[in-house]
Each structure stands twice: as structure tokens, then as C-alpha cells.
């Protein structure tokens, strides 16, 4: 029986320059942040990243890892604009494919279903369909003969997601109240790598009671690393909430090259355990209070 346990660095070693990689979560929820930081301190380059963006994109933009970003937004909810993303975007630092939030799902779904595109009205009348990737239309073969936008399949080389529990075979649980879109991300990807708050036995997953939290089947999971607080400073509710204080420190780091360099030294270019200590330690993270949405 396959033992898929890996370390963070093992996962990064599976990735290659130029790959198209999907990042799970949404804005400030269950982002694979430890993986984003591990990529930031690796030699990887020229990545095409696809995600509902949060500080994962800010970190990877600030560290020059992005060749192309496929996105609908980069935001931290309570802090609407990410200054690292803005700075890189305004400098023309990477190529862009800007999608409607629904297009994003359709592109992954088409890849997952092994069809070339999905058809939709969404995009008609907007500037989004002036982008070459979204510029193709298709005519309905039925009586309506309606002209629709063809959203191309976007297959991923790898998907990176953060979960709450996993066994060593990659049977996972995401316990947060919203499963988000990690499932279609994994289904659109050749291989999915998972970080988990806790690695447990299959029995401890209590799958009979928790099956609704089992968002993907283990056949999709190529590797799993136990990384407690691997979503920090985003939330992995119910285990911990967003760290607004740290997100402010993160934003402040965009105000000068010196502060960015200091931020990288303290929080990015360090092993994950050192990061957890640097942001206040295990007890401080567990004590974070849920902010209002």
C-alpha cells in the first residue's frame, strides 16, 4: 500500500520550472502558505499559477516566481488589496489571464472532464474576452443558435492544497465550513500535493462520521506532508483563524525594499518550524480570534 508521506521540500522537488500549478483555498482561507513560502525560497522559476488569490500570490509575486497568473482576484477579504501583488502587477512583472470567478471553475472542470472547453454566456460584452485565451466563441448547435464564449480547459501540472487531516495514503479531510474549490483543482491536475495539519491513522479519520469532509479520493494525491499551521497567516478553521496582525506586517513589508528583505529573512527564508515560532508560536496561533466577514 502506497505510503505517500513527504516533506515540504520533497514536494517542492517534484515541481519544475515553467510548470502550471494550481493553488487551493480562497483569499484568506486554507491557502497552502507553507508550500508557497517553500517555493519562494526554492530555485523554481517561470511558474504559471492559477488560483483564487490571497497572500500566496503576494509572496510569490514579491519573490519573482510568477511568469503568468491565471486569476479572478487577489485579495485578503478584510484587507481588499494585496500590496505585493499590486506592485508586481503595476510593474508589468508577469503575464495575466483574468477570468470571471465562474470561468475559473469551468476551465478546471473542462480539464477534469477531458473536454476542450465549456460554453457560457459569461464574458460577453466585457473586456475579458479580448484576451486571446478567452476570445473564441462557439455557436449553439440547437435552435437558439446562440453565440457563447468557449472557456478553454486549463489542465494543471500540479495542484497544491492544504487540508486538516490525512493518513499516509492521502485520504484527506477538510474540516472548515466551506470546502472551497480544491476538488476541481485536484481533478484538473496531473498530480496533487497536500499539506496537512495532522497526519493520522486511517482509523483516526473516522471516515464513517466525517465522509462529507473527504473532498477528494486518495488516487488524486501524489504526496502528503504534515505541516501544522501550514495555512498561516490564512485560516484553517476550526483549527485556527486568520492572523490579521501578521497580514498587516506582511502588507507593511511592501512599503520598502528594506522591509521586504527583512520580512523574507524572518518569515520566508526559514524552515517552517522557525516561521511558526517567528509569528508567535503554536499557542498564539491557536488563540487567534475569528474576524468578522
Amino acid at each position, binding site marked *: 500500500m502506497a505510503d505517500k508521506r513527504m516533506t515540504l521540500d520533497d514536494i517542492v522537488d517534484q515541481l519544475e520550472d515553467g510548470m502550471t500549478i494550481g493553488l487551493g483555498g480562497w483569499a484568506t482561507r486554507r491557502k497552502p502558505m507553507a508550500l508557497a513560502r517553500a517555493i519562494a525560497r526554492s530555485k523554481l522559476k517561470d511558474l504559471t499559477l492559477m488560483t483564487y488569490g490571497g497572500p500566496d500570490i503576494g509572496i510569490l509575486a514579491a519573490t519573482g516566481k510568477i511568469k503568468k497568473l491565471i486569476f479572478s482576484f*487577489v485579495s485578503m477579504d478584510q484587507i481588499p488589496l494585496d500590496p505585493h501583488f499590486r506592485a508586481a502587477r503595476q510593474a508589468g512583472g508577469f503575464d495575466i489571464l483574468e477570468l*470571471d*470567478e465562474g470561468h475559473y471553475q469551468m476551465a478546471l472542470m473542462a480539464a477534469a472532464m477531458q473536454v476542450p472547453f465549456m460554453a457560457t454566456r459569461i464574458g460577453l460584452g466585457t473586456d475579458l474576452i479580448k484576451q486571446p485565451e478567452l476570445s473564441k466563441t462557439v455557436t449553439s448547435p440547437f435552435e437558439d443558435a446562440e453565440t457563447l464564449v468557449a472557456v478553454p480547459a486549463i489542465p494543471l501540472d500540479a495542484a497544491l492544497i492544504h487540508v486538516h487531516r490525512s493518513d499516509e495514503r492521502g485520504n484527506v479531510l477538510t474540516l472548515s465550513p466551506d470546502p472551497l474549490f480544491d476538488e476541481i483543482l485536484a481533478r484538473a491536475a496531473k498530480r496533487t500535493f497536500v499539506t496537512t495539519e495532522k497526519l493520522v491513522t486511517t482509523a483516526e479519520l473516522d471516515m464513517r462520521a466525517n465522509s462529507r469532509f473527504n473532498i477528494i479520493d486518495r488516487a488524486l494525491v501524489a504526496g502528503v506532508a504534515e505541516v501544522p499551521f501550514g495555512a498561516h497567516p490564512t485560516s484553517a478553521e476550526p483549527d485556527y483563524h486568520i492572523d490579521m496582525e501578521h497580514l498587516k506586517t506582511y502588507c507593511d513589508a511592501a512599503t520598502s525594499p528594506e522591509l521586504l528583505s527583512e520580512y523574507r529573512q524572518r518569515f520566508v527564508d526559514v524552515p517552517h518550524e522557525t516561521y511558526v515560532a517567528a509569528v508567535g508560536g503554536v499557542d498564539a496561533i491557536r488563540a487567534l480570534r475569528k474576524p468578522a466577514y
Partner: protein
Amino acid sequence: MSYSLAELMIAAAAQCWADDGEIMGTGIGPLPRIAAGVAKSLYNPDLMTTDGECFYTTEPLGPGLSSVDFEIEGWVPYQRVFTTLWSGKRHAMVAPVQMDRFGQTNISVIGDHKKPKSAMLGARGFPGNTTCHLNSFIFTNHTKRAFVAGEVDYVCSPGFNPSRYPDGKVPNWLDLGRIITNLCVMDFGGPDRAMRVISLHPGVTFEEVQDNTGFELARLENLPVTPAPTEAELAAMAKIDPKNIRAKMIKDNPSGIRG
């Protein structure tokens, strides 16, 4: 009775959901969120409103409040938000950065899309929302920078601009709701769906609205004054927004009655 400009705008905004029936009402940002709550409290008790995360709450939940203290009546993870919005059973109120005479809006970039002068959020769900269901709009600063001449810098949501559609016609699925600003209330009821002023806030003239708009506006011939919030509406706002976040949404929290 005294009331603030923000409260006047909330009362006007609440009317947008009054006749919607049992659909999802989403007010994005504090003023629209309070307005959806007022609509649910007073005019459309069947409206479904969320905690901004992934639950429907029985009572409307105002900005800055934790859903922990509220009864949850349903689950609405993002996937369900999308399936709901695609079906059309939702009415959102949003606050774009720019809008043009066609009702096209922008929240993505100012300047060139490849190398913008200002990168903002990204198009988010604006294209799909406007394609699939009714949207109303709120602007707390009615200026020519918000209501721009020509077209918005990056068209995120479709509008009544025939030249942008494959067959040169505005599709019949498109509809746009009202626009609530700090000066007036507008809709798209003018000739060829032109933007039209339908009421002026107390003390505001049509000329002032026109002077602060980058394109020509249509108008009702006899323009009424936007109705003052009722006692019941003010009481609902106080209940939904006990932290008085509405007082912080417009600079210096001006009175709703100029003078």
C-alpha cells in the same frame, strides 16, 4: 427627524430588494449589506442573506458582527453561491470603481491592462453576476472619476453597449438595477436604456448631478426628492448595524439634508 446621508442611501438601497421574493440578496460592502438587511427586516422577509462567509442567517447580520451570535438557517459555501447566481436567483448590490453610460463597470485596473497604473481587485465575479442575475450599484462619491466619459478602463461587467456583442445587439438576458449615489438615485430607464435620474437627494439639483457625471444623463421630467428614511427604517439600521459602521462610510458622515 435627522438622518445621515449614509442612512438616506441605505433606505433608498433597501427598496432594490423589496419586490424580489425568496432569492439570495447580497449586499457587498457595509452600506449595501445593511440595506439588504433593512429590506429583509421590513419589506421582503423571504430574502436570504448570509454571514459573508458560508451560512445563511435567520436574521440579517450587519457588518463587523460575528455570525457566532446568530442563528444559522442554511449552508451556502462558495460552490452554492455560484450555482445560485448562475440560476439567476440572486440580486446583488456592488460598489464598482468606475461606471460608464452603458452601465459597464470596472474593478480590475486603472490604465493599461498589461501594465496598469493601478491594479485593483481583478474582475472577480462581476462578469458572471451581471450576466446571470440583477445587480444594483452604490457609489458614495458621485464624480466624473466614477461616472466616466467614454468607456470604463476595463469592462468587467457587461452593459447596454450593442457594439460589444457578437450580433451587434444588447442581449435580452441583460438587465441592470438601480444606482444609488451620494447625490441621487438613477436607473437605466432612459431612451435606449440610458442612465436616468429618478430622484434627487434633499438639496441636490439635476445640474449638480449632471456636472459630476462624465456623460449626458436622462431624467424624469418632475424629479421627486429621495424619500427620507422612515422611523422603522432607522430603527432597523440601528439594530442591524449596532456598531454604527454606516457613520464611517462617507467622509465626515454628513447629514442627509443639506444646509
